[in-house]
């Protein structure tokens, strides 16, 4: 009974996260300005990381946590570089 609930909860969570990623992508495609797109990309990274964590719980493999850590790192660096670019028009001053 409780395990059925857990299985249901994980699948539901994964669908919610997929929808969240879809929303971010819509905003990224539609976003009127470049900063909207960068913001959506950042949200997309975070959602992808959470999705990886939920897959990790489902399959019982801790490798997914490491993948999530890497995504968080890359997302941070990428978003920072994009904002820097928007701020000055070049990445490295």
């Amino acid at each position, binding site marked *: 009974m409780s395990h059925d609930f857990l*299985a249901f909860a994980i699948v*539901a969570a994964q669908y919610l996260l997929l929808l969240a990623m879809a929303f971010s992508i819509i905003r990224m495609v539609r976003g009127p300005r470049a900063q909207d797109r960068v913001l959506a990309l950042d949200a997309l990274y975070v959602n992808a990381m*959470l999705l990886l964590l939920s897959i990790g719980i489902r399959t019982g493999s801790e490798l997914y946590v490491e993948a999530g*850590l890497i995504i968080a790192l890359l997302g941070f660096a990428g*978003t*920072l570089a994009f904002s820097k670019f928007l701020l000055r028009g070049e990445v490295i001053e």
Partner: protein
Amino acid sequence: MNHLDALPPWAAVLVGVLVLLGSGFAFTGSLGLLRLKDFYKRVHAPTLGTTLGAFFMLAGSILCFSVVHGRPIFYEILIGVFLTLTTPITLMMLVRAALYRNRVEEAQEPPRRTTLE
């Protein structure tokens, strides 16, 4: 799904609730990203996913792996620490970039050519 059957019932329910809560907050954050009207409002939305959304998800993950392996595993905390340190920095940079761009345009200065946009 053998390893999940190894969880005792209380842990299974708790992990399920935590995972649902986490994804619910992340979902709400992205919904806000889509729904709110202008950029400065939209900036607030993704913080939902990175604070409580990530917190509940990480707590569920920690609980699940700790119970399955029979020893405490706090490995996921690294992601949490990292996320709380970096999110404010990225958001502040982004807002400053947006402010800069808006000011440049409002002042009717010739906007610089950018390849993005």
